[in-house]
């Protein structure tokens, strides 16, 4: 059965220029391995393909059982000049959490 990342993890979005950062943190530390396996950079890039034009790099932080996705060219030209409403991409943490994963 599929479930959303939302069910097992939480996320916070951040911005630096045209770069979007998305943390992905399991509610239960035991699910860190599952996130490492299921939430690959490629899958996240495909899931957010309408948003992220550039590459997606995934950092693993086993010290705090968390992942960090750094997405290039993701904020429609950057916080300061884009026409979109959410110029910072602050709502996009919940776009990541829509991704469906296996068990």
């Amino acid at each position, binding site marked *: 059965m599929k479930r959303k990342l*939302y069910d097992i993890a*939480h*996320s*916070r979005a*951040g*911005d*630096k*220029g*045209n*770069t979007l*950062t998305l*943390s992905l*943190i399991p*509610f239960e530390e035991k699910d860190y391995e599952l996130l490492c396996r299921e939430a690959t950079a490629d899958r996240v890039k495909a899931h*957010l393909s*309408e*948003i992220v034009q550039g590459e997606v790099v995934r*950092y693993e*932080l086993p*010290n*705090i059982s*968390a992942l*960090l996705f*750094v997405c290039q060219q993701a904020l429609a030209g*950057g*916080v*300061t*000049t884009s*026409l*979109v*409403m*959410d110029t910072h991409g*602050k*709502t*996009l943490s*919940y*776009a990541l959490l*829509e991704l469906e994963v296996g068990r």
Partner: protein
Amino acid sequence: MKEIVRIGCGAGFSGDRLEPAAVLVEKGELDYLVLECLAERTIALAQKRKAVDPTKGYDPLLERRMELLLPLLTQHGVKLLTNMGAANPVAAAGKVIEIAKRLNLLVKVAAVTGDDVLHMITGEELALENGRPLKQSGEILSANAYLGADAILPALQSGADIIITGRVADPSLVVAPLMHEFGWLLDDAETIGKATVIGHLMECAGQITGGYFADPVKKPVKGMEFLGHPFVDVYPDGSAVISKVEGTGGIINLATAKEQLLYEVTNPHEYLTPDVVADFTSVTLQQKAANCVAVKGGAGRQKPATLKVSVGYRAGFIGEGEISYAGQHALERARLAGETIQKRLRNRFAELRLDYIGCRSVHPPSLGKNCQSYEIRLRVAGKAETAEEAALVGEEVEALYTNGPAGGGGVRKYVNEVVGIVSALIDRKETKSEVTIKQS
């Protein structure tokens, strides 16, 4: 030397709430209060205000925050560090002295300057974002270097009660008082790395106490309405415990701390500040008690030879208009409205953005494809060279009342000037910071 230094962070952005800082000073038994009020674009906007009136250009909330906090800071012997000086720290210091005199308070204020490097920028420097010369982005309005803890230290050594800076790296507002109290040196990159981790966790204030975190289903937070801001107890070995004033709302736990640790980090192995290249991959977090998280670890390498400069440029105007549709086929009518405007303005705007709020606006269409909203709000946005041209967007949205689909209502229209930001690097040896002291 102190055995513990306690620093509170009472604001995480320019528009942050005023009360949490007052609670921190009154009940937090702080040594220092930090107010971080300067976003990337804030300083460019402040430079524009300074250009109109040379006595302005500091944070618009400076007076309100100081009128509230100055009596409390002096009563409790808490020192203040803030970047509310924005484009004009010296004028901000003058304003604080004026308020102190009015309130009959004795304070020593230090203004830290040297971040304004507009005179050094030729426009030929390459933007980090696109590799093109800065001047190609547009008319340059401002250029401010991110100064570090080394610029703030002389102000601390002067014995000032209030330290007001312009652009400094956010974590440096926390790193500097720790260096001052514990005698840490910038050459000790390992320790400065730890201090930067602490600064980074604190700099967004409420973002580590349940703000920008709460989700009533999966991440409930109690007492949002009186969300407390954090304070941190730092020890001479660079370890720390983050907490908040008892009785305030919010929550500090591993989840809030992890979200904040990774917030806006583009490489956890190399978090660049003017003070250090910090490494977050050895940080450990431990819940010590309710609303109490211990932070250990973190490391660093020698500070970079360059400083990042944030360059503001004129980027035209954005015009926006919004209108709501509700009931049967709301989305269809909103789309007819959007497409009609697109045809009417086709020759005036290179790009028009249509958002269908309630279905697909801040997230892409594929994620909102099964949307069944009863109400939809159409938003149209376009960019133009002049305010008059940009206003056409809102005018056309308003005209939908009598020239558009049935049942449109609640029109709002806006025109805003756009200041773009690009970054460049300069040799840190070319910058020179200064401290100006004023006394009430």
